[in-house]
């Protein structure tokens, strides 16, 4: 991955393609590369939908190799939702194919002078960009079908739906999975709107004729990969639980803990949970002939996804994730799994972030636009977004805009991005991460790694009041590093408990690139990523005032435990002290 593909969409005479060496971005991948490039090349005060913003699509350091789990692709830009730096990521096939095509990144720059819509096709011999207005306002499924008929079925697609074309701040970017369906999304922060502002509907990737990327030390790489896979398979979460039930296994657990945000974060328990739990979802899928165990990219050994069929046994959508089931389910008072699956399908097709959409609909329900629990109304609201009606344009721009439009006080956002499926009053540590992450409210920003990495900056007793802040800091550092590798984030669960599995990951990097990285080096990478993101946000106008949860988390007690968020502001302000 020694080159960057730059496409200036606003060049005189039409889009201009340039290939450059990686240059300053050598040795970076995934989030490390997207954030470094955005921090360096995007003016922090630019309009996110303007010519000066850039959309950076980058596979990870190990994408395109035989390393298991290496299918994650990062998408970076200035976010139209938060106004700060954004990295959203997705599984699917795109990362591995882009890696094998030799690109460290695709960068979309500039802005077209008219409303022409473009498709980009990349194979090992050629990059082409051509106008194709027949794709206008097609859903992601239809776009992919068209690309299949034009380019065959050995491709991967990166696309936007109507929401991205309409430049809505909840718009996602879809990546196709192994079955060539647009089910894996770089969801958060409106990255789809930025792609829409560049006039690009779809990028078609074809790695026919390429080979797996070759490591510097093939024997050591193969050996490290074996230890890596063994570690993932022996862990109860990555080796069993996720394969059996997917991420939605968390529904019963969060509900039991009283931390399951229900009806727009009013309560911590939802009566209908057992009907929409991961266990029930897996049983339903199996009974209907779908799959409860399925990988989203080749080389996945965790297999946390699945295939959801409707009552008639027809494909409807991929197995909805925990966040989606919560957002469209308990948070909206809906306990109908089929309705939630339909909402997932619509989000995927229109190209919308399921977390933002579910949170937005819940705010709309609190406003009286629909009743909590009314699944049909929720489905209709998503259709409004897809059609771009006046109501749809409000909803499609997220929970904060919707709350403002309808005069709702309880709007669960940080930096305008909706909170995910864990109430911070129950698990206060996640609240620290929500408040302080450079990405806005983000549950994936502070994941866990082996305890030996967590002594970055000195060890602080987690039982002390400041312990949660330090844990959040360490987790954010470690996650930023993992986000750069191209590894699926769920590897973190095994790496948390098994230091030897974390070592296997480091050995994969070292044997591929001929390096001698240590855990400290990995931590240093994470710190540098966060530092560049913080600096961008500061220049974009963010202050400590933005690193806060909405006031209602401090003022309203959450039943059943009747707890409030109690981490002090001055403690939140120390998260990035190192």
């Amino acid at each position: 991955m020694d080159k960057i593909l730059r496409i200036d969409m606003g060049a005189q005479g039409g889009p201009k393609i340039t290939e450059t060496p990686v240059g300053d971005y050598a040795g970076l991948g995934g989030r490390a590369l997207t954030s470094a490039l955005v921090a360096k090349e995007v003016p922090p005060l630019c309009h996110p939908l303007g010519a000066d913003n850039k959309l950076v699509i980058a596979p990870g350091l190990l994408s395109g190799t035989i390393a298991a789990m290496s299918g994650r692709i990062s998408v970076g830009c200035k976010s139209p939702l938060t106004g700060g730096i954004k990295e959203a990521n997705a599984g699917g096939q795109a990362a591995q194919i882009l890696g094998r095509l030799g690109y460290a990144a695709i960068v979309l720059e500039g802005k077209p002078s008219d409303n022409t819509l473009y498709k980009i096709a990349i194979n090992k011999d050629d990059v082409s960009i051509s106008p194709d207005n027949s794709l206008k306002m097609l859903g992601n499924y239809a776009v992919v079908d068209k690309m299949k008929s034009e380019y065959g079925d050995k491709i991967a697609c990166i696309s936007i739906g109507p929401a991205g074309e309409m430049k809505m701040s909840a718009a996602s970017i879809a990546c196709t999975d192994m079955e060539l369906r647009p089910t894996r999304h770089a969801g958060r922060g409106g990255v789809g709107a930025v792609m829409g502002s560049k006039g690009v509907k779809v990028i078609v990737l074809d790695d026919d004729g390429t080979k797996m990327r070759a490591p510097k030390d093939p024997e050591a790489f193969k050996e490290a990969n074996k230890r890596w896979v063994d570690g993932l398979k022996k862990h109860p979460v990555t080796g069993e639980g996720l394969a059996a039930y997917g991420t939605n296994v968390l529904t019963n657990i969060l509900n039991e803990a009283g931390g399951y945000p229900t009806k727009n974060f009013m309560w911590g328990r939802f009566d209908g949970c057992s009907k929409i739990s991961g266990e029930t979802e897996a049983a339903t899928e199996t009974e209907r002939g779908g799959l409860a165990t399925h990988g989203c990219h080749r080389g996945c050994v965790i297999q946390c996804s699945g295939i959801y069929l409707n009552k008639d046994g027809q494909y409807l959508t991929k197995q909805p994730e925990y966040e989606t089931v919560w957002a469209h389910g308990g948070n909206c008072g809906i306990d109908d799994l089929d309705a939630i699956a339909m909402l997932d399908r619509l989000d995927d097709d229109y190209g919308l972030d399921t977390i933002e959409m579910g949170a937005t609909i819940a705010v709309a329900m609190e406003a009286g636009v629909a009743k909590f629990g009314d699944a049909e109304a929720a489905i209709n609201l998503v259709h409004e977004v897809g059609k771009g009606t006046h109501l749809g344009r409000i909803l499609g721009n997220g929970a904060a805009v919707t709350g403002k439009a309808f005069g709702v006080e309880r709007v669960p956002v940080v930096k305008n991005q909706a909170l995910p499926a864990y109430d911070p009053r129950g698990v206060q540590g996640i609240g620290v991460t929500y408040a302080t992450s450079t990405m806005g409210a983000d549950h994936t920003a502070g994941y866990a790694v082996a305890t030996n990495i967590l002594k970055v900056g000195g060890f602080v007793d987690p039982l002390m009041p400041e312990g949660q802040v330090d844990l959040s800091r360490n987790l954010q550092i470690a996650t930023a590093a993992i986000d750069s590798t191209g590894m699926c984030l769920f590897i973190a669960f095994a790496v948390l408990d098994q230091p030897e599995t974390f070592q296997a990951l480091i050995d994969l990097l070292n044997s591929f690139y001929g390096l001698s990285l240590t855990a400290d080096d990995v931590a240093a990478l994470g710190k540098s990523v966060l530092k560049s993101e913080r600096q961008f946000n500061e220049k974009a106008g963010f202050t400590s005032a933005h690193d806060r949860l909405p006031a209602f988390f401090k003022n309203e007690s959450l039943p059943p435990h009747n707890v409030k968020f109690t981490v002090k502001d001055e403690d939140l302000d120390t998260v990035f002290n190192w």
Partner: protein
Amino acid sequence: MLLPDYMDRQIHDITTKRGQSTISPPVAIHLTWASRRPSDFLELLQKGFKLKVTVGKTVRRVLCDQLGMSNEYLDGRINTIFLDGKPVDDVDSAVIRDGSTLALSAAMPGFVGAALRKGGYYAPMRKGITHEAEQESGGDAEGFFTLKLYNLVADEIGPLFLNSGIFVEGTDLARFFDDRSPGFWERRRKIEINGAEADQSRLLQGREWAAQSGLVRLTVHQE
């Protein structure tokens, strides 16, 4: 795994507790089922069923000493435990009382899953809701607690409890049967109510058994 005589004790104690002058056992529904899929009865396991034990004892003493679970299983496989909705870090200082709800799960994904884990490194991140250590109470007082089983734990020990017998509120069980798909019923082999063979319709219509008793004893033998 489960102590073979614990169900007899359940019945005796329930009837005694009712204080009825004419002792009559709770309604007993016995199902013989074609499939070994625990998912068929998953919802009951998730929502919880009642058991009668000597209360005021620790989680370990109830599960292992009274119900026959092995210490190895409790310590090694059950990684996430809630007692009355609060995460438990120490099974030797969390005490089950009359009316308690105990939920058991395998290890969970995600940062929050790791934070909720029994004795996990990230436990302080949820200290506001953590179950606090308690002392056992002396004596042999009996009481009911609700047991919920989730994910892999439900798969592994759910069938054992179903085979030995569980107690479920009649109205909840009625609702469970009402919500089943046609596929569920295709797997039935035999239905017995209070020892007499019965038709499927007896579980769905005119359910005098749901009206007349609070708790129903359900056993499921999966072939």
